[in-house]
């Protein structure tokens, strides 16, 4: 086995995996804190990539500013989705919530196709064509940025959940919403902020990954599927689990694509979660209830 190729595959896998982790963290937060399985999560990723593209091309802003604006705008859209759909349905059966989020996903994806057109677009980034050599491994600067920005964001999210007053409110709500409400925590506010955080993270990953691939209105499907696989494999509601599972999925896909077959790369990843779930049905880091 050629070591250079192997190291390159691992590096590519870690970058892809980090993007999966960023998508999955939002999903798992929404589930862990609010018990909502949000099928529309991938659509916020898609919107993040598109808003970055449009802010960049229409207003001529540079890539970093465009990405920041798209994260903020999509966080706002997430809050709106919460106000219109998820908050009114919070006492309903999980079936109802799952189906209405599926409806929302179809609505955004097809609405996006209507608004943006079905043809693929390229998000411009100054880092997309610059190459960086790290030892024997070669990566574009954009892919290094994906990894670095994701690491910084995840550390910030971790510290936020762990130490900020608001993070404590989120964790209390995750453990017991009624108990949290009794101690004076505003559950409505926790809903709002959790959605803003989760959708902002989805948009950020869309903005980061956007320049490395083509974007089209149906990428949300892809994103939510990857996110779900990571979340299920790591254990619904577990942020640590999402981190490990995301990196693992990225590396295994990359190695499978490099050494077995590129076409079946995705199927290999899915087959892996089935193997994991046969062994541990609730995921690697399953939590009974709560946020870890």
């Amino acid at each position, binding site marked *: 086995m050629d070591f250079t190729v192997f190291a390159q595959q691992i590096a590519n896998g870690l970058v892809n995996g980090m993007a999966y982790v960023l998508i999955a963290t939002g999903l798992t937060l929404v589930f862990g804190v609010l018990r909502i399985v949000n099928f529309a999560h991938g659509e916020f990723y898609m919107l993040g990539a598109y808003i970055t593209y449009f802010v960049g091309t229409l207003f001529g802003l540079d890539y970093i500013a465009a990405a920041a604006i798209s994260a903020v705008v999509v966080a706002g859209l997430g809050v709106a989705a919460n106000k219109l759909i998820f908050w009114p349905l919070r006492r309903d059966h999980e079936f109802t919530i799952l189906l209405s989020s599926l409806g929302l996903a179809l609505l955004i994806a097809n609405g996006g196709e209507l608004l943006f057109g079905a043809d693929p677009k390229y998000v411009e980034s100054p880092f997309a064509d610059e190459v960086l050599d790290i030892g024997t491994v070669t990566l574009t600067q954009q892919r290094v940025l994906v990894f670095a920005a994701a690491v910084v964001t995840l550390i910030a999210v971790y510290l936020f959940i762990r130490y900020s007053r608001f993070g404590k409110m989120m964790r209390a709500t995750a453990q017991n919403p009624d108990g949290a409400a009794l101690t004076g925590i505003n559950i409505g506010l926790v809903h709002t902020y959790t959605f803003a955080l989760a959708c902002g993270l989805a948009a950020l990953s869309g903005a980061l990954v956007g320049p490395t691939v083509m974007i089209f209105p149906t990428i949300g499907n892809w994103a939510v599927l990857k996110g779900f696989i990571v979340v299920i494999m790591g254990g619904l509601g577990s942020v640590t689990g999402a981190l490990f599972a995301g990196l693992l999925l990225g590396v295994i896909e990359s190695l499978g694509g490099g050494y077995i077959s590129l076409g079946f790369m995705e199927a290999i990843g899915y087959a892996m979660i089935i193997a994991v779930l*046969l062994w541990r049905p609730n995921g690697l880091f399953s939590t009974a209830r709560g946020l870890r």
Partner: protein
Amino acid sequence: MNTNSHGQPLAIAGGVAALAVLPFLAGNAYLEHLLVLWMLYALLALSLNIVIGYLGELTFGHAAFVGVGAYTSAILSTQLGLPPLLGLPLAGLVAAAFGLVIGYAALRVVGPQFAILTLGFGAILFTITNHWVDLTRGPMGITDIPPMAIGPLAFDSARPTYYLVLALVLATAYLCHALVGSRTGRAFLAVRENAPLAASLGINVFHTKLMGFVAATAIAGIGGAIYAHYIRVITPDIMGVHNVAALIIVVIIGGRGTILGPILGALVYIGLLESLRVAGPLRMVIFAALLTGTVVFLPGGLISLWQRWRNAHRSENTQPATPTGLPSTEGGAK
């Protein structure tokens, strides 16, 4: 639940007679084609309804089993020259075998996890179909699939196919009806309403769910095979997200857990799909809005409107008003 039993056989006979003469009223080949599509979606929706309506689990992998059935029969008839009539039961068997393996793995978890796992399995089957070019011809799809035939009777046009699918829809509807009244069907509903309680009564929850899941996938496979031999071209898109969403939309809009609901839902779906053809991508936006709207405002689906009307109507005449006008959670129209 069988409150107006004296009127029911008559209504059913009338309904079946109306369905039987429909192709003669259609008048042109296009409308007949739509009738076939209606019945095909009704068949697939009835099978999905066993999982969503009776077992109470949401599956996002159903279209994959439709695809497995379609590809099985198409490959057998184009590459091995097997008569499609033989391919039909084989398609059901192969889809059921897939259903058994996938159900065995996925039914260990419930609720959202199950839904997501079936989505993952569906994606695996889609990816394999799309990339195993030697067997499935990949994205090019399989063309020139011979039409279904029983002896000299070939189902190569819309009208005979309509009757074939209608017969299968009626058979499936009857099976669902018999199932709900049977011990097995009551076990399904018990598992749906309260799995731990059902388990404490001696029902093997896992086996009950697996049985329902496998039955649903077998019917889906047969439906897929008929689709393949009727349209005569299949591509991996049959397993795609669009078809998954379409089937769920049909069941939910019509009314899950009922027999008439999925049939009605299929009519609404095909009718809107064709009449809104000019709207282009806006169609799916409308369907998505309908899905969300139905889930939020009319959880029992369109069929519950009729039940509501019937309850209100009856309470006007003789009986005391029923406690609520809400749709029954226990199976609806039977």
